[in-house]
């Protein structure tokens, strides 16, 4: 260690100042104090290259194709373009590993992962990347298979990279949130673990992401980022504890309550009674969460819980950002059959997209190209007015199948009525 020539890092050194935790301070500790000389050298090279990027304002990693035996993805290969100047970190691949839903760990398991990674890799990791993986950053070509074999033996598997089903994400969920309306853990694992082959062997048009948020606050950004967004919701009345509500009004005063709760309801479905009780027009509640976010002690989701499923959310590439749109307004998720139903829906959606999507086309973009109605017909879902913001407003539409479509609607309504009557 003593004879290691340290690359100068004047620009990175600046990032050691200030109150926020410094990744550079962490790197230096690894370079200077870690007992393994291999790690000292790798971090030294990495810092040298990063400093070079800071000085020239350019990146110097290029990709490639590598994976572990039996898989086709899950690893982000990185080869340095300036490896002759910084040979210690010439190869710096990242392994993407699937965390648990909600990102729970025991310290024992965390230490075990740290020990394995220290043995085979750089000792740097991120919890978690933007897709939701644990990122073990910095392994060379001769080591990543060993690291994977070791952690795979004690329960960890690679996530997705490339055109495949990606690692899923879930919020903290029912484990610690009163607003949770579903079992995020079960949904997450039922969905993504039904696609392990599609996670490990990239063969789809592009990426496909599942994200699960337990309530419409959507802490996982599912609507904006997931091809398949599952959002917990409820379809009966929200729960109001009038005593707790009145205590809140008493504490804050009527004006505060009017300004911050009653008048802020999205669908104007709340009013304040003369006795300070909360009056809710439940038929007009759109589950916009505001009242229960402000007064969680008095207001909460109802009992008849389930999920809303939205399809086609994604970020910029290629045609611009797209939000997910409602595909299934409400689905109950309680029995094993319910879970089979959501998995079957996901399989139908992935299959249809695998057959009809163009190369590098996300589900949302395919829907833009072929039209939402064609998509619905392709996966066998009936139209529902909850899917739209408003009906079409341009007269260019051919309606010669109208009578049959109307008949289907009435038949469906009759069936629903009969089902309720039992």
């Amino acid at each position, binding site marked *: 260690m003593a004879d290691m020539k340290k690359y100068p890092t004047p620009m990175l050194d600046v990032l050691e100042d200030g109150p*926020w935790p410094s990744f550079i301070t962490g790197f230096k500790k690894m370079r200077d104090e870690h007992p393994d000389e291999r790690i000292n050298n790798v971090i030294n090279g990495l810092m040298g290259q990063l400093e070079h990027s800071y000085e020239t304002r350019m990146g110097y990693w290029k990709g490639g194709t590598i994976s572990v035996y039996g898989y086709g993805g899950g690893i982000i290969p990185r080869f340095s373009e300036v490896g002759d100047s910084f040979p210690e970190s010439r190869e710096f691949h990242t392994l993407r590993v699937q965390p*648990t839903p909600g990102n729970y760990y025991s*310290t024992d398991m965390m230490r075990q992962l740290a020990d394995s990674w220290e043995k085979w890799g750089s000792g740097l990791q991120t919890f978690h990347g933007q897709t939701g993986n644990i990122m073990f950053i910095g392994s060379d070509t001769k080591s990543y298979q060993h690291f994977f074999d070791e952690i795979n033996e004690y329960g960890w598997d690679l996530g997705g990279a490339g055109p495949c089903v990606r690692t899923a994400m879930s919020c903290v969920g029912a484990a610690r949130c009163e607003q949770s309306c579903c079992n995020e853990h079960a949904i997450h694992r039922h969905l993504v673990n039904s696609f392990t082959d599609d996670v490990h062997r990239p063969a789809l048009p592009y990426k496909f992401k599942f994200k699960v948020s337990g309530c419409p606050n959507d802490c996982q950004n599912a609507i904006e980022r997931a091809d398949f967004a599952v959002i917990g919701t409820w379809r009966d009345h929200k729960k109001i504890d009038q005593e707790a509500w009145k205590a809140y009004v008493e504490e804050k005063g009527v004006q505060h309550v009017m300004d911050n709760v009653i008048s802020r309801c999205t669908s104007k479905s709340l009013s304040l009674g003369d006795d300070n009780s909360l009056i809710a027009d439940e038929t007009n509640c759109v589950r916009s969460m505001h009242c229960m976010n402000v007064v969680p002690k008095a207001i909460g989701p109802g009992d008849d819980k389930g999920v809303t499923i939205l399809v086609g959310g994604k*970020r910029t590439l290629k045609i611009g950002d797209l939000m997910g749109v409602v595909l299934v307004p409400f689905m109950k998720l309680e029995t094993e059959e319910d879970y089979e139903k959501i998995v079957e829906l996901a399989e139908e959606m992935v299959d249809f997209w695998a057959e009809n999507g163009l190369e590098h086309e996300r589900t949302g973009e395919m829907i833009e190209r072929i039209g939402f109605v064609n998509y619905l017909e392709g996966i066998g879902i009936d139209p529902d007015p909850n899917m739209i913001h408003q009906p079409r407003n341009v007269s260019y539409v051919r309606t010669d199948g109208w009578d049959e479509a109307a008949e289907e609607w009435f038949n469906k309504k009759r069936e629903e009525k009969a089902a309720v009557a039992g």
Partner: protein
Amino acid sequence: MAAPEMREPIESGCPDGFQYMHPAMRRNFGLWAYHEDPMPGVLLHVAKNGDKVWTVKAGTQRILDVFTLRTLCDIGDEYADGYMRFTIRSNIEYTIDSEDKLQPLVDALKDKGFAVGGTRNSVASLSHTQGWLHCDIPGTDASGVVKSMMDELYEEFTNWNMPNRVHITTSCCQINCGGQGDIAINVQHTKPPKIDHSLVGNVCERPSVVARCPVAAIRPAMVDGQPSLEVDEKKCICCGACYPPCPPMQINDHEATQLAVWIGGNHSNARGKPTFQRLVAAGIPNNPPRWPEATAIVKKILDCYKEGGRDWERINEWVERIGWPKFFEVTGLPFTKYHIDNWRGARANLNSSTHIRF
């Protein structure tokens, strides 16, 4: 010689989280009644049976070294019964079932240099990408931008000064892995790619590169007798989408790669429907190691929001209430032709009414 025996992977997929959950969370799964916010960075959740858990949240450097990771484990062992989790924005969270351990846990985190906060109406930790440290197409760094910005926003992370929570994101290219934020600091390329025609034919699958372009500005061409690609530079929107599938089409440049600030992305369905972020400032230099120009704009926007936003208004709601002309007035940011949308669906972003504030 026989080939070495390869180990077959165990395709276990996503592991079960219940084994790593604090027993109080396992016990009360789906049975929580309400929560309170005792202090910045601390949540109190109360179960229907009266059980209570306190959660302490702290910001980290995200790129963790094993020393730091073990420090977090040590804290978890000493104060949190050996359990920990990470949030979507790479904060560490410990959940405990005894109030006695709360202050010692908060103190231990602060003592080790972690920032306790990021709950309720604070500026949350920046969510970010890989940047120069690891990405193959980055226009800037990510960890360094975040470190610089959070140093300046430390008081906003550790206190409840904002009308509502503020999510800030950064992205080191225009593909925008950083996602949507109340404020987003994203790379903005300003010049078409520089093409190394000697490499394109061998390195790039040309039809797929042509297909990647959002504005059909790329076409196959013979250049100096070699098969290559050419870009109609008048059409090119400098997005960099051609660069990942074709590295000889270098989009990054030490001067022309700049930063832009976008605001009003909000993923929640709370009150309004989710919204995408909108461009407010561009032409910001990509200036390591501290990116002071970008930070100054972010702080200015935050100051105006703090001053003018009503309780519970996110940044997009604040601007919708006061109007965009007022936003540009109070922030002092210039309004330009580049703010006016011309992408698909652009008319929906124009004002077809006489609703104008004078």
